[in-house]
């Protein structure tokens, strides 16, 4: 029962934790430059590795806001070097458990009844953690339930956490606050939504109903009668999380089938519903005999048709060959600003063209083999290259639409998952682009 004792309670405590990380990152830099000056030949990757560990350690001690932010950042290859991404991706699995009396207390506070008054059996230790809550197994009337219970006070401390984490995250990544302000606002909005399980219940039911016709994808049943603001109850599903499935002994045909289901699910949500599951983390998907089960609709994103059209226009191959049309499309999306000098304009345009050429590759031939490791490698290399590019770093102004964060996150997550599975999937362009 070594639960929770390391989580900082007060704002001051959190500040102290972050200051600690700052110091650790600083010390790592000192060590790095020290070693370099005596010529021991450590490379920069090594440094990122160690800093990522220090930053990650702090994030995981804090739970809640910073942890979600870390996860969010980890998935945006343009914002973080590869080493950070690796560390942050671990975040979801390392949350220490809440004590059972606190779980019982949350039940009484929110539902007016203890867990054993609501269910026949209720497992005192959590089956697994989630970044802002944990899941318990319960039974009633011969049925198994997965009951997600939220940490108390997460919603309360989220805002102040973000205010504290922002300058540090910016410094670690090397961005200017003014330039990414609207991105942080978008992230904050999504994070606050995630603390509202009532909203999550609605969205889960809505999205699973809308997607119920998809082949190979299923959704747990939800139980509004056992759910509220801080507690969410759904049907218990046995299965392997996607990362364990990926490492398991599944044959190619099964990998292809699961991968295809995943691809179809995202295609339908993004291109048809324009409302999607924006948390493509391996822990949010289970593979069981009937197929792929999608869990956790805590983070969903709705996009407007205007933005959708502007964003996915880049899938059109003809656009990449036409400089003027490409620039126009980039202006529409706010990536190019009216005040940009010609040189930087051309520079951004070419970089975008290079990014798009890679990211749109799965759509080109109606079929894509994600088991080829060179694809993800080229995405990481691109991110790394952009990060090191000083001419990009010197660019000022807010660029792009904050809506793109979660669209990119969804696609980057989808590509990572499919690569991890090693799936070969049938792909196609959205109908309005295919003609």
């Amino acid at each position, binding site marked *: 029962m070594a639960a929770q*004792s390391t989580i900082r309670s007060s704002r001051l405590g959190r500040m102290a934790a972050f200051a600690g990380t700052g110091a650790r990152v600083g010390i790592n830099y000192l060590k790095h430059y020290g070693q370099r000056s005596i010529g021991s030949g450590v490379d920069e990757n090594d440094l990122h590795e160690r800093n990522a560990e220090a930053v990650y350690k702090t994030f995981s001690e804090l739970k809640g806001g910073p942890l979600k932010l870390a996860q969010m950042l980890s998935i945006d290859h343009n914002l973080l070097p590869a080493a950070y991404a690796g560390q942050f991706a671990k975040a979801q699995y390392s949350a220490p458990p809440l004590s059972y009396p606190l779980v019982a207390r949350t039940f009484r506070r929110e539902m007016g009844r203890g867990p054993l008054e609501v269910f026949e059996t209720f497992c005192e230790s959590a089956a697994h953690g989630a970044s802002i809550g944990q899941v318990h197994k319960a039974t009633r009337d011969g049925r198994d339930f997965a009951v997600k219970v939220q940490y108390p006070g997460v*919603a*309360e401390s989220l805002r102040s956490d973000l205010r504290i984490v922002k300058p540090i995250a910016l410094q670690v990544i090397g961005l200017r606050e003014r330039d990414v302000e609207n991105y942080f606002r978008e992230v904050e909005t999504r994070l606050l939504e995630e603390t509202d399980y009532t909203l999550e219940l609605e969205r889960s039911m809505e999205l699973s109903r809308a997607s119920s016709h998809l082949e190979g994808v299923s959704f747990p049943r939800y139980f509004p009668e056992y759910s509220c603001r801080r507690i969410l109850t759904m049907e218990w599903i046995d299965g392997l999380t996607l990362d364990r499935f990926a490492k398991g002994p599944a044959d190619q045909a099964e990998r292809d089938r699961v991968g295809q289901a995943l691809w179809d699910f995202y295609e339908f949500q993004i291109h048809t519903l324009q409302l999607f599951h924006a948390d493509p983390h391996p822990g949010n998907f289970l593979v069981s005999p009937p197929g792929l089960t999608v869990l956790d609709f805590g983070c969903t994103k709705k996009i407007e048709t205007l933005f959708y059209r502007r964003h996915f226009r880049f899938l059109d191959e003809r656009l990449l060959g036409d400089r003027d049309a490409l620039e126009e499309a980039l202006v529409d999306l706010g990536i190019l600003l009216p005040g940009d000098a010609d040189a930087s304009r051309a520079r951004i345009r070419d970089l975008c063209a290079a990014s798009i050429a890679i990211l749109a590759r799965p759509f080109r031939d109606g079929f894509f083999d994600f088991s080829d490791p060179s694809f993800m490698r080229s995405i990481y290399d691109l991110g790394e290259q952009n990060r090191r590019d000083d001419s990009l770093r010197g660019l000022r102004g807010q660029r792009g639409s904050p809506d793109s964060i979660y669209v990119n996150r969804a696609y980057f997550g989808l590509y990572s998952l499919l690569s991890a599975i090693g799936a070969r999937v049938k792909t196609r362009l959205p109908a309005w682009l295919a003609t």
Partner: protein
Amino acid sequence: MENKEKLLAGFRDHMGRHGHPPASVPALCETLGVAERDFYLEFGSLEALESSFWEDLVAKTVTAVEEGPEWQGFGARQRLLAFLFAFLEKSLDVRTVLLFRFRSVSPLCNPEWLRGMERRFKEWASDLVAHASATGEIADRGRLSGLYPAAFYLHLRAVIDFNVKDTSMRYERSDAFVEKSTHLAFDLLRTQAIDSAFDLLRFFAPWGHRAG
């Protein structure tokens, strides 16, 4: 209703309405229609009545948690957590009185009207410590162990202090405070941290030199 309950409820109502204890025994008795003589048969003074009021809150909490279906299976850490959460829940019934009384009192000072609560809680905490020693959750430190109930009482007062200042929705932050502080307390009691601290104190104490 028996006079005792009637007087306790009357005290609560008075505190709620006026924000201070009744001025005198006759003043309270008059509003309640209780003979003064009957008051003194129950309580020696107004302070004794209030002391009994807070003691009651602890006693009710103890009854509530020990009746819970999970109680027998709980270790000491979980029992303390369960007690504190139940205490916060019960205290909602008398929140107004709690606010008036505890907002201005430091957790370190111990007024007359809290004697009953202190006694009743320390009794319960002694049982808890015995349970914890039996399960090995805290180390037995000979005479020092006698101080544990007092330390847990201080913890309870800190929780009340946090709770009366808490402005979060449904006092969620109080729950988080209880969880975190209890874990810290037990982690400290389980390890050698306390022994090392005392060892260091002894080293600096003036009588330490004579031994060497």
